[in-house]
């Protein structure tokens, strides 16, 4: 089995205490689904898309970074840079990316904006990383949210076991489902993974009549080709979904790669013009899809 499908062991008695690894909780998110939302970013991703703007999500484990510029050389850390010294570091030179949170702890954070969710018809969005990489934890937090009438959105790359989708599906109100390429070889080249399960899972969700928004990240020179676009349209003709969102690559991720010591392969200079984005939009509109530029 692919090790990236790793799961936590299940223990019914301890579900509230089950821990997930979260790298950010963004309140007042407006572009990850309807209304005012709290977006929970789960750590770990099976894909390695070269344009990814959240590289801190790649690794599921907690990471510690060190910013020499900020360091006061106070030696409180005694040169050891880990979670416990990060907590004490006066200048925040040692920073922890990710934290383990129990279902209950995370729910407490989500619930803080409940009043806003109700006013705005918003809710919670689980993003990442790939939230389904922590599918048991995801299932428990989703259940807890639904028990409390919170609208739930999953922002997924689709790369997961079909069983994971089967389990969570009844607790999900809307999927934001990424589609990048139809051609599997090209998919593998740019994301390091096959798209077979991605396409299969989308078909499954489509058959289950779940609410789906397709998200198509427009990466200039990589997936904005006429060929890829027409293949996507062809594939989507067999899928039930409400709308497609075109997310234009912005090239703002570079600093994060440097901070994490990761190699950044994208050429950030190439940008899509508004005219080109509009052209692509029109292609999707002509195909009969409700098409939205942006999140």
């Amino acid at each position, binding site marked *: 089995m692919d090790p990236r499908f790793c799961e936590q062991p299940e223990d019914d008695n301890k579900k509230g205490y089950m821990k997930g690894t979260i790298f950010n909780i963004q309140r*007042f998110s*407006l*572009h990850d689904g309807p209304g005012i939302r709290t977006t929970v970013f789960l750590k770990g991703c099976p894909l390695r898309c070269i344009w990814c703007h959240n590289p801190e999500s790649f690794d599921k484990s907690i990471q510690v970074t060190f910013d020499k510029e900020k360091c006061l050389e*106070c030696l409180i850390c005694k040169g050891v840079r880990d979670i416990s010294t990060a907590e004490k570091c*006066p200048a925040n030179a040692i920073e922890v990316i990710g934290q383990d949170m129990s279902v209950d702890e995370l729910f407490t954070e989500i619930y803080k904006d409940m009043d*806003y969710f109700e006013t705005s018809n918003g809710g919670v969005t689980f993003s990442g990383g790939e939230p389904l990489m922590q599918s048991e934890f995801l299932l428990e937090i989703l259940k807890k949210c639904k028990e409390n009438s919170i609208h739930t959105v999953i922002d997924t790359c689709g790369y997961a076991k079909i069983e994971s989708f089967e389990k969570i599906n009844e607790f999900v109100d809307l999927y934001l489902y990424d589609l990048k390429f139809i051609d599997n070889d090209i998919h593998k080249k740019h994301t390091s993974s096959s798209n077979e399960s991605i396409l299969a899972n989308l078909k499954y969700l489509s058959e289950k009549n779940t609410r789906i928004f397709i998200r198509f990240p427009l990466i200039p020179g990589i997936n904005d080709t006429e060929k890829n676009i027409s293949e996507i349209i062809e594939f989507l003709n067999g899928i039930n979904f409400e709308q497609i969102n075109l997310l234009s690559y912005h090239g*703002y991720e570079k600093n994060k790669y440097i901070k994490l010591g990761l190699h950044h392969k994208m050429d950030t200079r190439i940008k899509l013009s508004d005219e080109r984005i509009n052209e692509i939009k029109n292609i999707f509109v002509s195909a009969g899809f409700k098409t939205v530029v942006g*999140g």
Partner: protein
Amino acid sequence: MLTERVEKLRKQSLEAIPHIWIGRGEIVTDTYIKNEGKVSTPVLRALTFKDILEKKPVCINDGELIVGEKGDSPAGAPTFPELCCHTKKDFDVMNHREKISFKVDKNAYKIHNKKIKPYWEKRSIRHRILESMSEEWMDAYQAGVFTEFMEQRAPGHTVADKKIFIKGFNQFKSEIKYSIEKFQAGSDPDKLDRIEQLKAMYITCDAIIRFAERHSEKAMELASTENDPQRKIELENIAEVCKHVPANAPRNFHEALQAYWFIHLGVTTELNTWDAFNPGRLDQHLQPFYEEGLKDGSLTKESAYELLNLFWIKFNNQPAPPKVGFTLLESATYTDFANINSGGLKTDGSDAVNDMSYMVLDCIDEMRLLQPSSNIQLSEKNPDKFIERALHILKKGAGQPSIFNADAVIQEMLNMGKSIEDARDGGTSGCVETGAFGKEAYILHGYFNLTKILDLTLHNGYDNYTQKLIGIGTGDAMFFGSFEELMTAFKEQLKYFIDIKIEGSNKIAELYAETMPAPFLSVIIDDCISTGKDYNAGGARYNSSYIQGVGTGTITDSLSSIKQHVFDDQRFTMQSMIRAIDDNFDGYEILHSIVKNKTRKYGNDDDYPDSLMQEVFNTFHDSVNGRPNAIGGKYRINMLPTTSHVYFGSVIGATADGRKAGKPLSEGISPVQGADVKGPTAVLKSASKMDHLKTGGTLLNQKFTPEIFNDPKGITAIKDIVRTYFNMNGHHLQFNVVNADTLRDAQLHPQNYGDLIVRVAGYSDYFNNLGKDLQDEIIERTEQCVAL
């Protein structure tokens, strides 16, 4: 669309040069010399009012339809030497400085120095206030523990209600006569005083009617020599309007605006009332005239709008009267805080939004004037369309209108014992202050420096700023063994200074009641006529005295820092903390980093600091609220700083939250600048943990870049966070939609801008989260300068 006439007069208003009109000061002096000691004080004040209105020049500007100026011409500012008398140096300062200057001509200098100053410098109420305050009061005042509004301005802070739109002064005269007869026939022990007061009111009614007549005469005179037939008709119409109002009830839209305007000039000429009087629920008052005018064909939407625009210009023509001494040096605005309300609820509790509410918003949008200030009263019963229209104006970056929770404002008034009808007819004025319009004296007594109290507690009552022991001994804080011990000491110091403040404020209120009655204002505020009592002596139906708490964020974070680092985590001792703040953190860089970066701070929806905010708020509330004032009412609190958080910061050394000595405190109930990092929903949650309904107003600022307002999803989201905050009983919200200059400053000083959200591409992010290249790009994108 603004008409050519409006554009021209608007330009005239913007270009008018603020200057001193010395006439008022001179007339007041003459009247006092002639009459003082010969008539009762209320009658002396009434005669003063009458003389000013009879002698001041009548100004009708070319093209205008609503007439009357407070000074001799647009931007002419009268002086009020009976309240505070300018020195020659004050005149030099205001005459020569670059910003917020007032030109003083040679004649004004001469009259002031020869006649006005010699008479008033030892008699002004400011002089008498400062003479009669206790040593403890003076110590606290000089140390910056509190300010005192009324050493420079008369108690005002009241707003007109609908009666002046449905009654004329002839009717008020009959009511006064009736009241005089009632007291003459009765056996009230104070009946002579009451009758004197009522006589004074009567004199002022005649004075305002005569003042309007003088405008009528002037208009006729101008009409007789006017060559433009169109303008000639307009002048004749002005003459007709001014003959009719405010002697009689207004008959149409034009007369309603003109009637109010004469009353506005009357109130702000009688005394320099704080905060400037205004028509309150203008949309409610005007709607019946508007509907009737449309029906009988005397008015069109366009002509009504033009009149409203012209009305706006009249406000902008009146700069706030210049202050004296240090306050003059510090004051940096011409704004007089007239703050017009629209929306809210009708007297019967139903949705009050009407055609005029939207016309007022259009007027705010197109006029883009500093004055009058304006706000919407937003009830859950008001439609979304109303707030959305307001947000579309706000996104242009001028900061107007501010948004109030009408339902909370009403609840606050009910909590203070007002009737439901009076509460629904009320609103907010000044900055954020709740009041029953036309029926309440809600007098602000000064800002109170909560953070300074903590500073004094940490130094056992000793003030480092004046280098004097000014507080009581509450123990050496270096040896406090628990956080509770610190809080107990803080509460004792707070109570000590509140007692001093209230004792002083009572004396000042008494001085005003005895020596500075306001008979004209009393005519239009219920129930001064029926009780025969002056507005300044408790004649209003409701009499509230406010003390305004300042520095909520700074004191909360300072307490949180001490609790967390000294007592809970024991990372360092009280001794280290106090020594560090005394040395402004010099030599304590690590400690400074810890308190700055590791303290759990207010504004992040974290109960640890937020519960400390509640404790400070409740302590302040409990030591003030409900205590009797000098005019038959009670003391209340509200939480607003205007600009005092800058001054209050300048008198405090470093604070335990890492703030350096002399730096501004947090403003309103907003978190410390940059301390809130979890976005607006968290800020509003934190702020809502304060019990707003126990106050008479709180002030919360939120800062957004224009991008978020330009996103259709953004406007909806902002509407939703406002609605949610109001569901949580939040009192008020205002938005800064910031421009590129601010963002440039944010790049240079990111620590001050932790809460700044920007719209990036398909998502929003904190400005600080972005790399410099992206910040640069956004700065270029958002170059939308706003000219006011």
